[in-house]
């Protein structure tokens, strides 16, 4: 879920130098939901993101074809960005959870507090997997594509009724980015950072209000997606 951290990635503007290239690519990119035949492509995306020290997120275990097939079954609303029929980016989006019964008019403060707690849990989703074909893209374009993926995934999540996204990030700031996660409006640490004792990644539990996240990302240099 190091990928989640990247979910919160900030725009650096580095990719502006290749803006023309990105525009050229834009016509070929479009957004759709994940499909049955995408499993191998999703696995390839993950391998490109966690396959080694130089990958987009850094090493993060094995992501099998079975995992990808399972994701497609469990999370059919997962958005993917496709170029020439090949998925280049995705962000796992779980199904929305059914709304609870409405709170009674005469509810006590304790009942209201409990209701609010349940609602917060219901409208929050945690990103377990996301990525881009980092191996096929120039670094700056990859960052922009990732931000574009976040933007569209968060909009899809908002349309499903989610209000918050959470992630366990291994850094306060992605190594390729210039902005710390919590510098974005509405992005906060849920808990204090938890540190590795043996040189591994730390854990930053982030929560980002989707409306603010979408607003912040829309101001970045996103790639046009049909």
């Amino acid at each position: 879920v190091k990928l989640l951290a990247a979910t919160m990635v900030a725009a650096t503007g580095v990719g502006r130098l290749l803006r023309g290239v990105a525009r050229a690519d834009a016509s070929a990119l479009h957004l759709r939901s994940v499909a049955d035949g995408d499993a191998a492509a999703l696995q390839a995306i993950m391998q490109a993101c966690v396959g080694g020290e130089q990958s987009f997120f850094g090493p993060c275990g094995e992501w099998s074809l079975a995992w990808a097939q399972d994701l497609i079954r469990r999370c059919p609303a997962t958005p993917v960005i496709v170029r020439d029929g090949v998925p280049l980016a995705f962000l796992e989006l779980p199904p929305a959870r059914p709304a609870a019964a409405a709170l009674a008019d005469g509810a006590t403060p304790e009942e209201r507090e409990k209701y609010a707690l349940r609602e917060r849990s219901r409208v929050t989703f945690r990103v377990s997997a996301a990525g881009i074909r980092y191996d096929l893209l120039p670094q700056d374009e990859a960052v922009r594509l990732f931000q574009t993926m976040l933007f569209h995934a968060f909009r899809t999540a908002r349309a499903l009724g989610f209000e918050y996204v959470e992630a366990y990030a291994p850094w306060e700031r992605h190594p390729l980015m210039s902005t710390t996660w919590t510098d974005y409006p509405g992005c906060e640490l849920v808990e204090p950072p938890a540190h590795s004792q043996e040189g591994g990644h730390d854990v930053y539990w982030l929560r980002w209000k989707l409306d603010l996240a979408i607003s912040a990302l829309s101001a970045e240099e996103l790639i046009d997606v049909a």
Partner: protein
Amino acid sequence: MWRSTALAAGVALALCAGGRAAALSLTFGATKDTQIDSKDSTVNFGTWTTAAVGFTVGGPGRINDTLLQFDLSPLPSGAIERATLRMFIDTTTQDPLALAVTIAQLQSDFVEGDGTTGVTWDTQPGVFASPLASATMNTSPGDWFEVDVTALSVAALARSNHAQIGLRIAPTDAPLDASSVFTMRTKEFDDGEQRPQLVVAVRPATPAPALRGWAMLTAVGTLLLLGYRVLRRRHISA
């Protein structure tokens, strides 16, 4: 005056007639509580206000267990009639969660940690193979998830020299096909009122025979004194 004297006598007689002490229900808040994480296996989460139990799917997957410790040294000696572990639920990933959990006793102490040093997945204590407690977690956020841990607590106290009971709450089955995680509030959450609790109903050891005899003598003596005072008052009135 005489009313209070009569009341004392009645209580003494009741104690004698009852022959057994009433069960006490005592609530112990966790003195240590933290999650451990199979994926971030060298990370300590001791400062977090919540602790997770469950599975998260994806790649190598993530297993979260929670470690708890209770200090039961104030517990009076006697038979434990019931012990209930209570956890205040903060979040769930599904409704209902339907997550089977198993609770086991830790074999040794652990360091809760400060977020930098402390217990991790890699350094967690081992657990005793039995007895275990199990339950299915279906509680919604905002409510207490309760598990009967009577047998586990009895065994744990028998094994412990200092009444420090450590527990591990873990998902029972192999990773499921969907993420299934709940978090409970820890003692670090606000004022700690919603920290994990162990509620123990204990029947204190039966009073010694000499004490029961003394109580009987007290009751009889009090009744005699009360009768004497009533008779004397009537005599004075007359």
